[in-house]
């Protein structure tokens, strides 16, 4: 039987009157790198905590490595590594003491599993005698990942490991995740950075306790995206306002050095450019471009608002 590593069926979780998870279902295969993509407050952390057996759900079922998260949590725990969104190592212990501690708690040793963490831990070696509290943000993140890995789990739950991390370190972090995946480790990772979706095998777009959609990044874009008109000119804020006001444009958002406009049915790109030039915009460029995950997310959000 082909059993999924993580199987979630209709998970519901409430905090008082707030419904953090409104019945989410998902199946993650062995060795998959799966992304939960969504903003703060979407329910990503709650789901990861349920899967890490740290929080009982109010409804639905979840299995990790074939075991029930509520009834068999003891057997699950040694198999999973969990990295919470908030720094949760021991601030007064040094880097190497933290790593030792996490290994010992799981009856493992740093030596036997060092190969798993070597690539990441090498960055920390110069600071191994430093108290964890005194590490920079990026270093804390690396240490937390080492601590989640040191007992050689088969599944990793990583809650926003790249939040607040600069683009270079983020890229490095994802390279490490790729290497762990190649070792056969199943990874469920949450992130508010929509551009990281393309680095995952499959993703779920999460918003307000629900999955908007699940699939490969390409599938999601094909299912929900509409061609975008990317526009730029000499005065970007004014161009944004004028594009929004034009009947050819359904909606328009700033997107880095371009604005992304969703054209209305029957709109003409050439005529839109002329209209913008007539309004005094210079150096106007408009071109058709395929949407990305962030465009899709914005579309979902505006449709449901």
């Amino acid at each position, binding site marked *: 039987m082909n059993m999924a590593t993580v199987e979630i069926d209709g998970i519901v979780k409430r905090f008082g009157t707030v419904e953090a998870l409104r019945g989410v279902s998902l199946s993650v295969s062995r060795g998959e790198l799966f992304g939960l993509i*969504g*903003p*703060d*407050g*979407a329910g990503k952390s709650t789901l990861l905590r349920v899967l890490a057996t740290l929080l009982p759900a109010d409804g639905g079922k979840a299995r990790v490595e074939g075991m029930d998260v509520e009834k068999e949590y003891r057997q699950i725990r040694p198999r999973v590594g969990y990295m919470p969104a908030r720094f949760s190592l021991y601030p007064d212990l040094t880097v190497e003491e933290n790593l030792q501690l996490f290994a010992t708690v799981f009856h493992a040793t740093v030596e036997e599993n060092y190969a798993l963490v070597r690539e990441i831990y090498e960055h920390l070696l110069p600071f191994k005698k430093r108290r964890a509290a005194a590490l*920079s*943000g*990026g*270093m804390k993140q690396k240490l937390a990942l080492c601590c989640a890995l040191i007992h050689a789990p088969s599944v990793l739950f990583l809650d*926003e490991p790249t*939040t*607040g*991390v*600069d*683009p*270079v*370190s*983020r*890229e490095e972090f994802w390279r490490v995740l790729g290497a762990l995946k190649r070792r056969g480790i199943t990874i469920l990772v949450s992130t*508010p*950075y*929509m551009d990281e979706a393309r680095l995952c095998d499959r993703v779920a777009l999460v*918003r307000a306790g629900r999955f908007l959609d699940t699939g490969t990044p390409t599938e999601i874009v094909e299912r929900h995206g509409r061609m975008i008109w990317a526009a730029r000119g000499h005065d*970007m*804020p004014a161009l944004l306002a004028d594009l929004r006001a034009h009947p050819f444009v359904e909606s328009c*958002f*700033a*997107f*880095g*050095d371009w604005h992304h406009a969703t054209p209305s049915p029957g709109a003409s790109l050439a005529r839109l450019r002329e209209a913008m030039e007539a309004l005094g915009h210079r150096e106007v460029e408009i071109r058709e471009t395929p949407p990305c995950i*962030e465009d899709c*997310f*914005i579309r979902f*959000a*505006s449709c449901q608002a």
Partner: protein
Amino acid sequence: MDNAITTESLTKRFGTFTAVDRLTIEVKRGEIFGFLGANGAGKTTAMRVLCGLSKPTSGRAIVAGHDVAARPDSVKRRIGYMSQRFSLYGELKVWENIRLYAGIYGTPSARIKERSDALLRELDFEEGRDKLVRDLPPGWKQKLAFSVAIFHEPEIVFLDEPTGGVDPVTRRQFWELIYRTAGRGITVFVTTHYMDEAEYCDRVSIMVDGRIAALDSPRALKERLRVATVDDAFKMLARGDASPLYTNN
């Protein structure tokens, strides 16, 4: 003389470690200035010095017309500050948070009342007046925190990663708020790890190991490095694949 911020060889050392190394920049009044850099490059330390929270080891910084070392309190009164980590008091209502911060900055009571009504109208948030801040959606908290940071009409507002974790639509609305603020003449000094947001700035600096490696408009920066995005430029400079484009001395 129309600079919001002028620094000359501003340096901050901790023991033998130089966190900020001879920072020399000028930020113009009403400008949106993106202060970029890798984690640990010295951004937070530099920002703390500019806000008058930490004394420079050497060099000089004039912020909102005052020397940060000699007159830190005058600087603090003339600036606003917002970060993703510290913003508002969750156990207080929306109006209580506004009142508290405005009071701290010495705004007279009658003026607080009048201005907070106007603010909530402008944000289209009049019905949220009596809500506890902890019950607000993250996007609202962010907008409110920003509005509170500029409530006392500072000359400069410092934003430390203001949009982390916010959904894509709110993130963009937030930047429209920033544009409006800059349009009113308030200088915006902002750090972010979202490189698409760097493109919205008038000018950006990229800090590498305590020094400014580049300072330019996003367009000029991309042209000089022959790359398509500020993200590419950032990565080249932070990895040391391109030599610094900006030298202080």
